[in-house]
């Protein structure tokens, strides 16, 4: 029988939630790495028991942990992230040049074909890769070497590379996103990169249609259609049908098009989920009602999903990496909140239940479907 394993990163440790395919009874394991910020955990698609975790604090810096038994035991691996060559500068918040400085790993993306290969998206924004299970890390410096690097600027959460999407149909194609530089794509395995921000409009920057400078919050892709991308930008929900070469807004009837998380149904490539957040100055749901919005038409027409979610006095946020889906026949949707709840739906969003209610603030949620 299938099982589901939910990997939850929080501000004070990691938690692993497991259930059978019914997804009604959950076992909660943790906290792992108690007291540390766990920005992200993710398992290898090739070997689901191989899990990588990003562990950090302001006191002791960055650790990368690796498990070979599904999260029961862990071992620290390499934590040396050295920029390639002379790092140079990017723009600071006030527009002055600021040296590139490593701060933390935001996202770990294991390879689709090799459990020893894993990518790391870091702050200050850069992409690293390890081919030895996380022991050693090398920068794919063609990204920062793209001519626009000196013009990148941090978003409110820092200048982080937070999204890494590997194209299942083309091993040389990778999509990444940076706050607040925008989205980029490589078609040669990470050697060279191009910005893919045409069609994005960001009213808060001097040139709303600039090549870079957009605060992309997250991107999602359905593996069966790797040329179709969905984006939650700082403001606006966007869609691309040409692998990011151009974007169209699909915010449609959303109550607000600000938000962080976005994901796609496991079996319906046109079914998309977002969690609208009131605004960039009020990071909580509109009207104190926590609602996921679902579009079955690839955007523009959205329906609120609220059955089982708090509909009064709810002022949590759902961060960019805190939503995920399982691959069971009845697709499960999961998201975590800054209030420490992890909600699950085993019917594609029609109804929800909390798996846990009182974790530390949730930073990330990833789901593994185990057979």
């Amino acid at each position, binding site marked *: 029988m299938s099982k589901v394993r939910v990997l939850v990163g929080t*501000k004070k440790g990691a938690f692993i939630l497991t259930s059978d395919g019914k997804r009604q009874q959950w076992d909660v394991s943790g906290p792992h790495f108690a007291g540390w910020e766990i920005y992200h955990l993710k398992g290898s698609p090739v070997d689901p028991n191989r899990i990588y975790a990003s562990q950090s604090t*302001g*006191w*002791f810096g960055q650790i990368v942990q690796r498990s070979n038994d599904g999260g029961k035991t862990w071992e*620290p691996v390499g934590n040396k992230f050295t920029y390639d060559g002379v790092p140079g500068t990017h723009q600071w918040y006030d527009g002055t040049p600021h040296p590139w400085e490593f701060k933390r790993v935001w996202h770990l993306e294991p390879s689709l074909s090799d459990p020893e290969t894993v990518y790391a998206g870091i702050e200050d924004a850069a992409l690293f890769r390890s081919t030895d299970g996380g022991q050693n890390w090398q920068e794919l410096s063609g990204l920062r070497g793209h001519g626009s690097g000196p013009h990148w600027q941090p978003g409110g959460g820092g200048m982080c590379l937070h999204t890494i999407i590997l194209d299942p149909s083309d091993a040389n194609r990778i999509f990444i996103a940076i706050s607040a530089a925008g989205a980029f794509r490589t078609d040669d395995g990470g050697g060279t990169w191009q910005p893919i921000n045409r069609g994005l409009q960001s009213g808060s920057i001097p040139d709303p249609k600039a090549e870079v400078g957009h605060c992309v919050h997250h991107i999602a892709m359905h593996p069966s259609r790797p040329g179709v991308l969905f984006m939650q930008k700082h403001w606006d929900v966007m869609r691309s049908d040409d692998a990011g070469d151009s974007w169209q807004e699909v915010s449609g009837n959303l109550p607000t098009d600000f938000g962080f998380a976005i994901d796609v149904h496991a079996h319906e490539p046109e079914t998309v989920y977002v969690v609208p957040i009131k605004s960039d100055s009020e990071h909580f749901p509109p009207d104190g009602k926590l609602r996921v919005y679902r579009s079955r038409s690839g955007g523009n027409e959205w329906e609120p999903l609220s059955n089982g979610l708090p509909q009064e006095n709810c002022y949590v946020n759902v961060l960019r990496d805190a939503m995920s889906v399982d691959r069971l026949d009845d697709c499960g949707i999961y998201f975590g909140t800054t209030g420490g709840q992890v909600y699950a739906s085993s019917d594609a969003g029609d109804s929800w239940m909390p798996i846990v209610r009182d974790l530390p603030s949730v*930073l990330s949620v990833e789901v593994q479907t185990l057979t």
Partner: protein
Amino acid sequence: MIRVILPQHLRTLAHVNGEVLLEVEGQVTPRSILDALESRYPMLQGTIRDHTTLERRPFLRFFACEQDVSHESPDSPLPDSVAAGSEPFLIIGAIAGGLCP
């Protein structure tokens, strides 16, 4: 033997309980202690001082014989009582600090 007291989180990371006892070759300085510590516990590399610059992380302090030696040269000899093992070398996390996303 040199006695080193680590913050709780680093003891957990290194899988040690209580004090760490180290053999330090040559002059006993913050640098030679940290070199020996990181050699024996490689998972601590980068957690106390930067991998490349070897500078102390900002929210950590070094104490010896009730003196804050954080701002001394990393090559300054530590007191004889630390070198003799009668007093520990303490690595202490600041009460303030930490970052949130």
